[in-house]
């Protein structure tokens, strides 16, 4: 896995943050999508949960710092931890 890529001499870490609703939180949008899939003939779709994906580019090559920064970003803004969980992946 390449953690830091060189862009014109600049180190960049690419990250993907995925935000999903916690279990037990109703997801009316997911339910509507589930219904629409059924009406398109896709049978056997048990459950659909809608979430959000954020792709970020962070300056630097320090993976540990990037992860700590991303966690802070999730806690402070990207996720509402009352209703949402998040995962962070560096690539």
């Amino acid at each position: 896995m390449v953690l830091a890529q060189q862009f014109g001499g600049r180190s960049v870490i690419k990250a993907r943050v995925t935000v999903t609703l916690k279990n037990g939180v109703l997801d009316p949008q997911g339910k509507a999508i589930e219904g629409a899939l059924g009406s398109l003939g896709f049978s056997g779709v048990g459950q659909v949960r809608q979430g959000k994906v954020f792709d970020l580019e962070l300056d630097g090559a320090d993976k540990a710092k990037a992860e700590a920064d991303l966690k802070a970003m999730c806690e402070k803004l990207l996720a509402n931890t009352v209703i949402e969980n998040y995962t962070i992946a560096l690539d």
Partner: protein
Amino acid sequence: MKSAVVQLPGLNRDRDMIAALTKISGKAPVTVWQTEAEIPDDVDLIVIPGGFSYGDYLRCGAIAARMPVMQAIKDKADKGVKVLGVCNGFQILVEAGMLPGALMRNSSLKFVCKEVKLEVVNAETDFTRAYEKGQVIRCPVAHHDGNYFVDPETLAGMEDRGEIVFRYAEGTNPNGSLGDIAGVMNRRGNVLGMMPHPENLIEAAHGGSDGRGIFASALDVIAATA
């Protein structure tokens, strides 16, 4: 009693709120822009009106809740100044962590703009003294994300402490909110958030004045407006 109305890009109910506060208290509120880091010392009531701050990007109220003025509002609330958030203002207060819970997409997935009935669950608050406990009032709603959610333990504590202030009554819950919750306050009782728009039912031209009591209570002018 001096009031302040907060203004942010995308909030569009500020004029209705300014009109309501002016008509009910006889004094125009001061306006506070989002980048201001201080609220005037003599303000006793801060109102965050409704609208679509920052286009509802990310989550309703999420960006607004991180603007500099919110720290100033938190500092004032910590000193006991009253804060009222209506509609997007309620969403901003939960995003800022000043009220528990979250406001999610309406269960119908539709924007609702209509009149509902509200039960005054707690009439012993700084915002509801003009009403009787259990009184049912009319109130307009206009929102897409008013579906209140909070975890069961937090909810139980809120109910015990009387922090559920308004519930949708008579089967008029427009958004699927947990326990028909329409408005909640903080533990100290000086911060109230509600999805319905009381500022749009304060005079005969609105077809009624059921919403007036919230402002009369918060502005401490109940006797004058009774």
